[in-house]
């Protein structure tokens, strides 16, 4: 464990190891997403109530999963950065934030599109939609705070603190929004009501979720690698690399 943490301190080591891991994750992401989408969109049976419009969950649910997981990963990376001063954790957190915001937006947008045939409206103040919207604001706050500092070290630490504060608040926000929703509006339709999904619908969803996670890991590795090169551009090993490739 400690040996691994100590190795993480070296961007050079991470750069080398991620080069080997990256193609595997890209391949897994590509294969899983292709299989999942073809199966989910073409072969899975249509929902008896919603018809084909339910198929949007094959994008919506994985995006929503990622939106929440990425915020938690960002906060964990923030803790790792603050406690052990591992720069790579912060680079990864910085690279994750826009992807997380994008996933939150995709989840919201696909939810809105799904709402048109199902609820007959683009937007409803549904508890899930509302807490997703708040999550998007939290992402935008972290990104904006990081961008506001001129010193990179302060920006990293401030963004880490905000991510930690946010991650403590996410469950509180989620439960209070649930409470608020049950107080103000009767639950007209809940997604949990469809939890009893048949296997033919559920299996492609699982494949899509796994595919999205692989995509997230692969993209974060790739973006962190370029961030390492950018931040360490005055180090000798990066110069050697640039010289060797030229």
């Amino acid at each position, binding site marked *: 464990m400690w040996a691994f943490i100590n190795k993480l301190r070296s961007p050079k080591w991470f750069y080398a190891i991620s080069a080997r891991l990256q193609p595997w994750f890209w391949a897994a992401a590509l294969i899983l997403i292709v299989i999942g989408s073809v199966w989910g969109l073409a072969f899975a049976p249509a929902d008896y109530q919603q018809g084909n419009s339910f198929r949007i969950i094959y994008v919506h649910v994985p995006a929503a999963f990622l939106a929440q997981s990425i915020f938690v990963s960002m906060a964990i990376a923030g803790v790792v950065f*603050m406690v052990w001063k591992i720069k790579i954790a912060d680079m990864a957190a910085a690279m994750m934030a826009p992807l997380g915001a994008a996933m939150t937006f995709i989840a919201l947008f696909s939810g809105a599109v799904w709402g048109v045939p199902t609820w007959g409206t683009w937007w409803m103040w549904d508890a899930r939609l509302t807490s997703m919207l*708040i999550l998007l*604001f*939290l992402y*935008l*706050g972290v990104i*904006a*705070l990081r961008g*506001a*500092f001129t*010193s990179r*070290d*302060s920006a990293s*630490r*401030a963004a880490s*603190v*905000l991510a*930690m*504060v*946010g991650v*403590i*608040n996410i469950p*509180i*926000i989620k439960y*209070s*929004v649930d*409470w*608020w929703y049950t*107080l103000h509006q009767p639950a007209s339709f809940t997604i949990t009501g469809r939890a009893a999904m048949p296997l033919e619908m559920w299996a492609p969803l699982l494949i899509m979720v796994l595919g999205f996670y692989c995509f997230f890991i692969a993209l974060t590795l790739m973006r962190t690698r370029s961030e390492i090169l950018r931040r360490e551009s005055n180090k000798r090993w990066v110069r050697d690399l640039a010289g060797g490739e030229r």
Partner: protein
Amino acid sequence: MTGTEGSVSKEVPVVFHGEPGGGLAVAFWATLKRDLVLLLRRRSEVMNPLVFFAIVITLFPIGISPDPQLLTAIAPGLLWVAALLAALLSLDSLFRADYDDGSLEQLLLTPQPLAVLALAKVAVHWLLTGLPLALMAPLLGVMLALPAGSYGVLAVSLALGSASLSLIGAIGAALTVGLSRGGVLLSLLVLPLYIPVLIFGAGAVQAAIFGDGVMAHLAILGALLALALILAPLAIAASLRISING
């Protein structure tokens, strides 16, 4: 420092009784007293959020409708949102003056834990913003045709809730105090975190109007405050360190 305000604030004596290290309680009360004295000397700054609160509440009947029935329905939310924004307005100056004249650095250098001293500053913010807002809210409630039985609940929920708002907001204020234009960013960071407090605060008033039990809402507001009292000072202290050293 050429401004006259800066030189005034430097003259305020901070007297530590006993040995130079001083006890924790002594330091807490000294910080509390110093901030109270400083703020009470700039009364207009204390008045501004209250005036803002009154003006915003005036805008809504003009903008929506003077119909008492409609106003009763939306009054709890309006009063809470307006009070929340008024409290937010004064947050930017929470650490600003101390940051500019260097006394924040002295606070960091004291042997007492920064979290406790920061808590004293937040307490002053609540005493001079949250508490007056809570006392003033019933008056504006009358203007919004709030039913008679709910004034007490409105004041209590605002007094409890605004303490949490001050604590959470102070994290944002501490993170942005080093930035030249932190005001808008501060609201971006802090407003999503305010949502649980808003839900239960406005919910308490709504419950009072409908004649439901209000204790559940007030208890949860108290629980949120207890959680914020424990965790927020630590985050504020960490954020102040980032802002000073960055």
